[in-house]
């Protein structure tokens, strides 16, 4: 932009080349800025539009600066190159106050503009929306647990029943303004949906909030963006955006509410919903439920595995082994895996949050019975090697 005022030009200012260079830099900046849309993933929330627009401006200005600096640099390096053996000096030229004022002033103005623009975008994306739905999410190594209440208030009429339901994936619909309350159980995590351009750290001991409104139907990856340990890369889940509220209620909320209102008697049928309350799928593989975690041992054919491990570990029965391994995960470490990674799912609600060697979470006996019964069905044999439901109940109660 100010090539003319630089030293070294021999008296006359070559206007045409400079004008061309300025035009090239300005246009080039726009071309670079225009790649914004091509680079970013799809825009799936209101914030995405505002942030992409801001990024476009930043990239355009940045692109112009880039072209100006690289252009001058390459031009100088080539145009003013001399032989290595040259012993002449360049001109004794110390500076130019006008030029220095210009390149202090223009960036300052740009910076002020960017500050105000960013500020307004920030106010826009974090502004509270009318009719926000509050969803709670708990980050724990290495999975997320989302907790919802019934938007139609059906559960409130039955105060004896659970008032909320949980899932390991998030469900919402296009246009639903969401207030996400974020907690972390063990270490810090960060809730990030790249397609929605939203991110908020989950901090231990400090609840944080995140507001967003999905604008696009689909299934998008939720990524943990704060280092949380060995399974950090595997700590992802999905946010499922239904096209409208009706579908959302029909596909997600109603079955959950029905399950609470009319729970099936068979614990095996209850298990998948019960399991959604816990982070198991973050670390274990279980094909029948679509788990893909790798930090812990596989749960496929768990009943058969339990028969083998029960022998080495001197457990009285496979169901005892399964229940015990959930209540006391560090007692028997499968070769190749580390102690202290799996939280201890204890039977007492009042246990301190921090126990020796592992994190503690409360798991009622009913839940453990359902989970154990479900894992007992995971076998290649025609019949489960475990005992019957009563044996499982006894085995679970022995773990207290």
């Amino acid at each position, binding site marked *: 932009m100010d090539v003319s005022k630089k030293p070294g030009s021999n008296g006359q200012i070559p206007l045409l080349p400079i004008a061309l260079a300025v035009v090239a830099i300005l246009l080039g900046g726009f071309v670079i800025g225009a790649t914004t849309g091509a680079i970013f993933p799809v825009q799936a929330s209101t*914030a995405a539009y505002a942030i992409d627009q801001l990024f476009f401006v930043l*990239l355009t200005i940045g692109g112009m*600066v880039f072209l100006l600096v690289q252009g001058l640099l390459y031009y100088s390096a080539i145009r003013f190159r001399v032989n290595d*053996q040259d012993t002449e000096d360049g001109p004794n030229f*110390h500076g130019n106050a006008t030029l220095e004022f210009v390149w202090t002033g223009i960036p300052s103005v740009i910076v002020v503009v960017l500050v105000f623009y960013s500020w307004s975008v920030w106010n826009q994306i974090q502004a509270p929306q009318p009719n926000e739905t509050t969803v709670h999410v708990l980050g724990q190594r290495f999975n997320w647990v989302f907790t919802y209440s019934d938007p139609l208030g059906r559960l409130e009429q039955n105060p004896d029943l659970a008032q909320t339901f949980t899932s390991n994936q998030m469900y919402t619909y296009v246009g639903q303004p969401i207030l996400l309350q974020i907690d972390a159980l063990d270490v810090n995590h960060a809730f990030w949906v790249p397609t929605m351009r939203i991110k908020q750290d989950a901090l231990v001991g400090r609840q944080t909030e995140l507001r967003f409104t999905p604008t696009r139907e689909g299934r998008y990856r939720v990524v943990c963006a704060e280092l949380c*340990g060995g399974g950090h890369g595997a700590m992802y889940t999905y946010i499922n955006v239904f096209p409208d509220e009706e579908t959302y209620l029909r596909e997600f909320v109603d079955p959950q509410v029905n399950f609470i209102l009319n729970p099936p008697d068979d614990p095996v049928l209850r298990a998948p919903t019960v399991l959604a309350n816990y982070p198991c799928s973050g670390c274990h593989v279980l094909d029948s439920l679509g788990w893909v975690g790798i930090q812990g041992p596989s749960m496929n054919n768990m009943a058969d595995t339990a028969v083998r491990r029960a022998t080495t570990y001197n457990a009285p029965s496979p169901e005892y082994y399964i229940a015990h391994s959930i209540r006391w995960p560090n007692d028997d470490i499968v070769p190749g895996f580390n102690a202290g990674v799996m939280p201890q799912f204890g039977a007492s609600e009042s246990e301190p949050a921090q126990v020796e060697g592992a994190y503690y979470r409360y798991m009622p006996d009913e839940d453990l019975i359902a989970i154990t019964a479900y894992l007992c069905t995971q076998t290649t044999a025609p019949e489960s090697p475990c005992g019957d439901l009563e044996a499982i109940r006894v085995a679970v109660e022995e773990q207290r």
Partner: protein
Amino acid sequence: MASISVPLGGVGATTAPRPKLSEYLRWSVDHKIIGVQYIATSLFFFIIGGALAMLIRAELLTPAQDFMVDGAAYNTLFTMHGTIMIFLWIVPVLAGFGNYFVPLMLGAKDMAFPWLNAFAFWLIPPAGLLMLLGWFIGPAEAGWTSYPPLSTHFSPDGQTLWAISLHLLGVASILGGINFIVTIRNMRPEGMKYFQMPLFIWAVLAQSVIVVLATPFLAGALTLLILDRVAGTAFFTPSQGGDVLLWQNIFWFYSHPAVYIMVLPAFGMISEILSVHARKPVFGYRMIALSSMAIALVGFTVWAHHMFTSLQPELRIPFMITSMIIAVPTGIKVFSWLGTIYGGRIRWTSAMLFAMGFISMFVIGGITGVMVASVPVDIHLHDTYFVVSHFHFVLYGGTVFGVYGALYHWWPKITGRMMDENLGKIHFALTYLSFLGTFFPQHLVGMQGMPRRVAEYAPEFQAMNIIISISGFVLGVSTFLILYNMVWSLYRGKIAGSNPWRALTLEWMTTSPPPPYNFVGDPIPFEDPYGYGTEASREYLKAMDERFVAPMLNPALRKRPDAQLPAPNPSAGD
């Protein structure tokens, strides 16, 4: 080989004796020995940190976690890579150049506190050893930022060693910082005013101010971390009343200024190299000098921009404002450098190529820096590969390119021999291209949704990661070119003479390598350290060479007792 050295009057025909190897292996209070000790030690850690980076890139060739046995082992890789590169490579190598050249550029016989100087250096090998010993008891795996509770309740004992090691390194840099400030303030030659100091000295001064004021905060944070780990306190454990953000605030209050600790001296190196090799005075000398100080001061007010996704929302905007403001003095520097080379007579020496490469890469880091300073954009980009890319453009494309340039530029002074220029140019070309190939695509994967610090990532990023990894391997290999060149030049390099680049600053007004007492008598600085293009400067160079430096090469005079004046006060450094 293209000879750049047209040494004046045949001085290059003889070389001054080099210190013996054994002198580098033991305690010495000579700032030049200490400087080389710093540089050699940090190069050793550079290789280790680089090897870790190669392992990281090997793991990331596939989206699954396959190469490393488990995720925690992968976490130790980047934790140690980051810590080693920052605290055991960049910081000490810059301290090494500062040690070697600050007294020389001031025409002084040594640093203000030679004993303290040696003590500060000798803290580094044990600290580095402690850091590496972590591998035998379970190394730190919470990232170089070590956010609790991951670093308190979920990290093995190596994390404690990590903290103790950083404590020692912090003490070393505080002692070094005090030493630099006192040296620069008190030991300037008569007649050199502050605004006649070389810009490298200005940069070291600004850096030392940050070191002295910020590093005690690191000491405080690490003390709390160690107590939480070993003494059962709960400063960072929320269930017992602690606060996880407390660590983030104190840590970044040190660690953001630490970024300027790591980059300011490189700014100084670049200013030297560009001016000397373009044979043109530094454009806007005062603005460059003052912008260093401005960066040092504003740098203390920006720390929380590392916490835009964890900080309380209402506090984010103020930190965005200060973070954006700091772009202005940085921009002034870049434009001043361009003004310096524009219209000069540029020799494409290896040093100059790296200095120009610095501008080329650093400006990208600067632009992305403004992007991530903007709160809404950073909400998306925070903790992604975009940030990884940003700080590598600043610290590798910036500082490491600067250090490479400084090595080519000052190696003749340190060893008395030139490095091979052809090999140096190949090194530059390979580094420049493979650096771009490694780090530029990281912007894109970061924007598309790949978080940092993961061993496992979404399959759609694999193609890009393969490009990054292969470029990374080339970048790793290219490092060995300069290491080979350094060793080769010791034995086969062209004899450099006292002033192969015909530079005006005082470090060149002595033999290469300088004698233990640096100068016989006190050198007289030229009125303008970058006064190229004047008759006076040419006469000054000629006069200094003939009347001041040449006698120092005369063995008879080297032995004169007058020449053997001790460095001021070598023992009472404390």
